[in-house]
């Protein structure tokens, strides 16, 4: 039975032409490295939590946490001054601040690309309750971001998606990345793009659809990617060309305003990562809640909220 079965399958395989294997092994190694990093982060967070509990028990650990709850925040800000004093943005040689940073740098009528609009959804995808808390999404994001210091953590939670914000510095100054995660009910289509938004869609990478977009009039969502995964989750990566002032300490050093901190292709890599599946997110959740217990909450996020 087995021999006949195998020979029939072998002959059927011989008749089909599978797609090329390409960089599958290299990609697997890269994903495996991220998985290792995630596990290391989880172990580190668990150790830090244990040490923190011990220190609290001794009454010695109340002064060390930053307002964003990030475990490494205070040490980083210490480089720009005292640990409790937010560092000022650096100035260029001409004395002008290098960043465009404002409480709300996006005009009220600027075009936006919300991952899910408030109901009813004009993009026709429908939506459900988000699968994760901001802390979990932030920890998942940290495992797939390129190397570099990160600051200005913030989150937001709406009925149909969870959002997080992080500033990343890869050596040329901080740039803003905002990620939104939600569930979609029906497969999206690529036929409706909001006014002022340039949209391009493609398939592959294990996703139902990968949608890239550019919005010239919106520096928070200057470029972005929405990945509609085959498991029903949608991940939107927004790459800003400005920074937003909020309830978090300003990052030290030069802000990045003219160039995005990650490319669209890197944003696609992040959006199609295997970290964005419900099982991985569930696994991250306990340590994420300990690592980021008090994230500042944004009341508006990429055009949604008030």
């Amino acid at each position, binding site marked *: *039975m*087995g021999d*006949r*079965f*195998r020979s*029939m*399958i072998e002959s*059927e*395989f011989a008749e089909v032409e*599978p*797609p090329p*294997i390409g960089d*599958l*092994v290299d*990609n*697997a*190694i*890269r*994903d*495996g*490295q*991220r*998985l*290792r990093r995630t*596990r290391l982060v989880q172990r580190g967070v668990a150790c830090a939590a244990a040490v923190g509990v011990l220190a609290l028990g001794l009454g010695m650990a109340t002064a060390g946490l930053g307002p964003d709850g990030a475990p490494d925040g205070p040490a980083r800000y210490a480089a720009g001054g005292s640990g409790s004093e937010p560092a000022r943005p650096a100035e260029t040689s001409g004395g002008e601040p290098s960043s465009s940073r404002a409480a709300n740098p996006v005009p009220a009528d600027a075009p936006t690309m919300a991952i899910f609009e408030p109901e009813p959804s004009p993009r026709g995808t429908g939506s459900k309750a988000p699968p994760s808390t901001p802390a979990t999404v932030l920890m998942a994001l940290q495992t797939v971001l390129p190397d570099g210091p990160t600051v200005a953590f913030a989150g937001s939670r709406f009925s149909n998606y969870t959002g997080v914000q992080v500033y990343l510095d890869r050596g040329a100054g901080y740039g803003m990345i905002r990620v939104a995660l939600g569930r979609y009910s029906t497969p999206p289509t690529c036929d409706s793009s909001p006014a002022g938004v340039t949209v391009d869609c493609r398939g*592959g990478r*294990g996703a139902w659809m990968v949608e890239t977009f550019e919005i010239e009039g919106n520096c928070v969502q200057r470029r972005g990617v929405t990945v509609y995964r*085959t*498991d*029903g989750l949608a991940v939107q990566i927004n790459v800003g060309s400005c920074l937003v002032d909020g309830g978090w300490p300003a990052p030290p050093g030069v802000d990045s305003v003219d160039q995005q901190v990650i490319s669209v292709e890197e944003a696609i890599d992040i959006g199609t990562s*295997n970290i964005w*599946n*419900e*099982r991985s997110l569930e696994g991250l959740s306990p340590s994420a809640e300990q690592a980021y217990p008090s994230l500042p909450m944004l009341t508006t996020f990429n055009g949604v909220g008030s």
Partner: protein
Amino acid sequence: MSNGGTDLDFEEYAQARVVRLRQRAYLLCRDWHLAQDLTQITLSRLYASWRKVVKADNIDAYAAKVMVRVFLDHKRLKSSHEVVSDTMQTQTERVDGSGGPELRLTLMEALGHLSPRARAIVVLRYWEDHSVDTVAELLGVTPSLVKTQSMRALAELRALLGTDLATLVG
């Protein structure tokens, strides 16, 4: 192959097995893109635990366990998107020995009509040639369940393939 615990050893193992792993993934999911993803996820998990994996008696069995579980998890999550049908939606046109076109279902297409777990059992039992006990261990079920589902799956394949089953069972 030395199968030591270094990254180089992993790469050597992965390059040697990737085609076969992807074929197994394709038999499980019947979609080359998803098969690519299943293979990549399997290899990435192997890589992440490689130092432990190389100490296992049978790395291939470990890889099979990872892949089948990822596949079954994926099918569980995707179950709301999948439509189960008891009728033939497509048939493959092939050319028989006399040169005339012959419409018939291939074995791979017939596999696609089995439930995900039954498909996994058939692939592991008859394509991978694992014993009932090994399949039960890989899937985390009892040997009696593997036997029962194997019989049912074969009966279903028999019904789907009709006269082709004579070739299959010899």
